[in-house]
Every structure is written in structure tokens, then in C-alpha cells.
């Protein structure tokens, strides 16, 4: 089912709004939680007015950074369509790590100070679907709401959920969100998993696209989502990546989205198709947020007439890969 990409929203270390994808991204050297290594990371300015203004919302006062990223990205996308019936908007968000900061803080508290000192304020904010609950509450959204979890390919899965809801009339529009927040323990985890062996740069932020059934004059469309090419090891991943690319026409441009150990496998599978090299910030691995940013970049290029069709792969790093075929 062909869907229009009606609007979008971005929160990243380059700033706020889709133009931020193409500007200069702020970077910093941050130490891991163990304190024995520093890594280059791309962090959102958590003190920016675009985020702090959401503190006025009672539900968000104590919420984790990821909630702020999500609501700002979602609001950007919704504000571009002022007459939307928000009661008929569904929301599906993709997460890789979700509410990392509060989960670690809560567990640290009960480990160091004892279980009796656990905070009843922090615990609910550790739950995967809390951020999205804040978003729908604050923005007055009334349609179906799913929080989905997985590796980066979770984004293509979320796109598929949106397709189902729009096909079945469960919603008239669907906001698809991807968001991640950074915590230094993530560096320890990525190091343990060997993900830094291929010069991976960690980031955080959020991206949102609003999908609808109506045609948008001069806009971009989501033509097809192919996902679920699952793998358990690198050998299976090589096969999954090849199968993922099989339905992509040879003359279709492919967005450069692979990171870490996936890069050589992706390059091989893409073969002679034209590659749209990433702009500076889009080389950052912010999991589902990166997937959203890459989809938005494709939509912008299509709307400008730079390309007729763009394939945006979401390679995953531990579960499956998927691909979105976008057109004008």
C-alpha cells in the first residue's frame, strides 16, 4: 500500500527540525561508565529551549530525556499539518534501548542504597512505553499506540505496523517515531559487543514521520516495506542482507545506512546500485533514531526532485534487516 510521507520532525545533535540533519553536528568525547575509555559521541543539547519548553507539561516534568526527544520530534511533524484530527492519529515508536538513563539510575539506586530506598517516581519511567504515553497525553493523540522494541530494524517493523493500521482503517494518519537516549553504560555495552571495532560513532535523538493515505502534491511516498530478513550470526546475516536487497531495482539509488560490522556485507549486497553517501551526522549510529533520520533525508531528496526512487535499508545489528522503498 502506497502511503504519503506527510511531514517530519527531527531532534539530533545537529539541532532541531529536518534542516538540522544537514548542518554541523555537535560532538564530544565522553568516558564510558567504567572510566577507562573515551569515545566520540553525538549528543542532543538537553538544555535547548526546544526541549525545555516541554517541562511545562505536568506529565513530562520528571520524564527521561528520551521522552523529551520524542515529544519534540512528534510535535514538529504534527504542527506542519494544523487541521489534522489528532483523535484519528495512531502512534508507533521503535526503540532499541529505550529508557536507558532511568533504568540504570533505578538499578544503581537499589544496588547501592538497598531495595528499600528504590524510588517510586523513577520506576514507572523505566517502562518501555512510558515515553510514548507522555507524548500522546501531551499532544492530544487519540488513535492506537504501540511501543515496539528490537534492533535498528525495529524501525521498518514500525513502518509496517503503520501500514496495517492505515490499511485497516484503525487510524487516518500514523506518526512513526524512532528515539534513543545516551548513557555512558552504552559505551561499555557496545565495547563488550565488539561494535567499536569498525569505528562506530554513537549518537542519540529522535525522528518522526507522519504517514497518511492521501496524496501529497510534490511530496514523497512510502511505496513498500520489506522486512523480517532475520539472522542469528554473520553468515546468516550475509544471506539476509542479500535477500533484503533482491527486490530493489538495479537502477534505484540506495541510502548508505550501514554501520559497524554490517558495512562490508551491505556494500556487497548493494552491488553496483548507486549509493547515496551519508552526510556528516547521518553516519552516527543512534539506532532507531538514525533510521528515522535516513528516511526523512530520503523524503527530502525525493520532494526536491533529486531522485525518483530511493531504497532506505535498515540493517539491524542483532535481529533482522528490512528496507523501505520510497518514491515521489
Amino acid at each position: 500500500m502506497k502511503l504519503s510521507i506527510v511531514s517530519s520532525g527531527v531532534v539530533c545533535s545537529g539541532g532541531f527540525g529536518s534542516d538540522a540533519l544537514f548542518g554541523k553536528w555537535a560532538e564530544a568525547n565522553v568516558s564510558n561508565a567504567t572510566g577507562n575509555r573515551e569515545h566520540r559521541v553525538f549528543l542532543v543539547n538537553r538544555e535547548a529551549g526546544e526541549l525545555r519548553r516541554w517541562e511545562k507539561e505536568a506529565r513530562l516534568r520528571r520524564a527521561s530525556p528520551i521522552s523529551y526527544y520524542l515529544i519534540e520530534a512528534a510535535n514538529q511533524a504534527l504542527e506542519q499539518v494544523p487541521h489534522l484530527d489528532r483523535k484519528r492519529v495512531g502512534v508507533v515508536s521503535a526503540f532499541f534501548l529505550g529508557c536507558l538513563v532511568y533504568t540504570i539510575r533505578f538499578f544503581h539506586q537499589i544496588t547501592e542504597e538497598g531495595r528499600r530506598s528504590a524510588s517510586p517516581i523513577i520506576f514507572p519511567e523505566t517502562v518501555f512505553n512510558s515515553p510514548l504515553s507522555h507524548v500522546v497525553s501531551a499532544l492530544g493523540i487519540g488513535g492506537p499506540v504501540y511501543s515496539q522494541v528490537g534492533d535498528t530494524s525495529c524501525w521498518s517493523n514500525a513502518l509496517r505496523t503503520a501500514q496495517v493500521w492505515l490499511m485497516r482503517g484503525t487510524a487516518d494518519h500514523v506518526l512513526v517515531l524512532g528515539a534513543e537516549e545516551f548513557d555512558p553504560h552504552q559505551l561499555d555495552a557496545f565495547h563488550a559487543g565488539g561494535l567499536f571495532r569498525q569505528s562506530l560513532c554513537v549518537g542519540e535523538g529522535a525522528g518522526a514521520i507522519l504517514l497518511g493515505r492521501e496524496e501529497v502534491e510534490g511530496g514523497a511516498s512510502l511505496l513498500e516495506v520489506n522486512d523480517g530478513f532475520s539472522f542469528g550470526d554473520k553468515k546468516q546475516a550475509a544471506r539476509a542482507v542479500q535477500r533484503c536487497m533482491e527486490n530493489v531495482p538495479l537502477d534505484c539509488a540506495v541510502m548508505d545506512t550501514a554501520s559497524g560490522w554490517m558495512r562490508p556485507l551491505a556494500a556487497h549486497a548493494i552491488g553496483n546500485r548507486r549509493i547515496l553517501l551519508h552526510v556528516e551526522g547521518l553516519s552516527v549510529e543512534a539506532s532507531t533514531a538514525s533510521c528515522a533520520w535516513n528516511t526523512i533525508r530520503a523524503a527530502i531528496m525525493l520532494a526536491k526532485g533529486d531522485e525518483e526512487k530511493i531504497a532506505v535499508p535498515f540493517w539491524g545489528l542483532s535481529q533482522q534487516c528490512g528496507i523501505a522503498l520510497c518514491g515521489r
Partner: protein
Amino acid sequence: MSVKSQRKVAITGFGCVTALGKNLTETWDRLYQGHSARVPLTVIETEGCRVREGAQAELPNLKNLIEKELRRLSRASRLGLPAVGDALEQANLLDLDGRSKLPRLEMCVSTTACGMEKGEEFLRGVWSGQREGQAARVRHYQAQHQIREIQQYFGFVGPSMIVANACAGGGNAIGHASDLIRSGLADIVLTGGYEALCGLVFTGFDCLLSLAPEACRPFDQGRSGLMLGEGAGFLVLESEESAVRRGVKIAGFLAGYGHCTDVRHLTQPTQNGEMLERAMQMALQDAAMSADCIGYVNAHGTGTPLNDSAEAAAFTRVFGETMTRLSSTKAALGHTLGAAGAIEAILCLQALQSGQIPPQINLQNPEPLVANFLATRNELIEMEAAMSVNLGFGGSNAALIISRS
């Protein structure tokens, strides 16, 4: 243009592991007899918690895995794999070696804590400077790893969707699987949920003062909280045409699904239960059924003061005097969070097939609004359909209707 397909969704296989039993037969026997699985917990550390009891499962054996391989699995996988095996076997999707006959099988699964005990071990490792084994802990924590272990153990690949809508997630996963089939995007979907007890979540509920210090008493005026549990429930859903083509027995139909979000509060439902009522009405409309078709409702019934009163209000408005029987099986099995919706849907199916209604145990002074509807021991009824409802943190509400084959 939207497509509301009338394609019927058959249930051809189902299995569960709970604190009452290593499979559905054991669970059902003890549930129907009115047992509770509440015990002092030994599988997680509870020192310092106000409440130290819950419902912990005995892990079933897993064929073809040696001790070293078993040790690597998260507790979540140890619970999930046997339940998946039972569901696939009943749906005639396993070969003689216990491997999937289908090389590609889609999954829709729910969990809230993934393999959390591995995540806890990883964090402790970071704080103590331990390096050995950290990579495996990171890997085994993630929800997609439990999916991968299911795929590898049974030998299939395919798309997997993990929904984390808190305690309503199990209902959402099953409902979404049904949506995929009715949209024509899948013919067969393995769906369900799993949840293992872990220190972080148990302490979280303890600090919220949500855990019952004594017996969990859903829909009792003296209720004081929930009993946390663990388990897994999986079902094979497929289009009716696919089931007929394969010649497999249809156990029932997933006839209706409704879901919506209550935005009033992060952890408390609106007290008049209006959003749960909406989810139930959506499910009835989806199933093209009236409320009097529903013979049994498996309530969310956590046993917390606010949840049960909101639910009771919603049930009264949806069913009025037509409601027949109602119970919350969480008093017996514990609240299994992301697995609850899946396990409870399976219990609805079992009630439909057997005519036996799980009793509402631990009742002393029933909530007046639902007092006449709460199931007692040894009840047998014939019914056309049953409903399972779930609510969760974040305001998630889900309702499923399961009808006879």
C-alpha cells in the same frame, strides 16, 4: 481507502508455562481446582523488599540442549521455548525432530523486561570491573535475542515484531498478529508473550506499594495489591483458509480485537474505566458480536484498589445484567506483565473448549458491582465466546474476543 477484511483468524495451536504448571494441562488442572502459586521467592533476591512472595515457575526441560547451553539462556527464554514448542506441536508445525516444518514463520511477541537478569548482571559487571562474560550478558538481555533463540531452537526465520505496551502487550501482540492475517500480510503468525521474574521489576512494584503483602484478592473490597509472577504463553494464529488447507484442527477463532490508550495517568486507569470500556466495545464491534455473546471474561484484575474498581465500572457498563461469569486468574498465577495477555487468552480458549470456568479465588468481600458475576469453584457453562482484557502502565488497554470453532 481502508480495508476491513472479514478473513477469519483461526487458532490452531497454543501452549503456556506458568507458576501453576509446566504446560497448559498442569496449569489448567490446578487453576480450576482453585490453587494459588504464591510462594516465598527464591529465583530473585528480595532482601529489603516489603513483600518477598510471588509466583515463580518451575522451568521445564528442554530437549536437545546440554547443560552449558541451558545456562547461557535467559530465564525468559527458558520459559518461552517450551510454550512455543507446545503451540507449534499442536498446530502440526513441528517435524519428528521438533523442528519447524515452515522455514519462514512470522512472530508477534510481547515482553516488558526482556532478559532483564542478564542486563542486571551486565551492570553489576561494569560497576565491579568484571570483563569476562560481558558480551554474552549484553546479547542475552535484549528482547530480540529471545526471539532469535526461539527461531534457532525450532529452525525457522522470518519477521518478528516485539511490542512492549507494558501489561497490555500480550493482548496487543495477539491482536496485531490477527491484524496481519486479516490484512493479508501473513498467513500464519506465532504470537504470544513471555516474562521472567527479575529484581529490577519486582523492586519497582514493591516500591510503588503495589504488591499484596498477603494473598492477592482481585475484586475483593479488602484487596491490597498484586502478586508478581512469570511465565509464557504462545499461540499459532492462521487464516481459516490456511488451517483448512493444512488440515489442522481449529481450536477457536480470534474474533475481535480492540485497543486504546488512557492518557490520564502513567500508572493509574481512569476510575470510571471509560478507556477499557472503549477497548471492549471496539473488540465487540470488530467481532460483530453483542455483549451477551460473551460467556466468560478473564479480567485484568490485578488486585490493586484502583485497577479493579475501574474494571468493575467498565464491565458493568459493557455487560450490564447480561454478563455471565468473570474472574481474574492473576490471584492464582500471578501477574505476568508482558505475558499476561497471552496466557489469559489461552485460558479463555481453554474455558471455551472445556466449559470450565477458572474460579475467582481469595474472595472474602466481593466488589458489589461485580459480586454476582464472579466465578466460583466447579462452574461449568456452554458459551459462544470469551473475552480477555488487559490494562497496562502508560494507559494501554487491550481486549480480545475468542470464539468457538
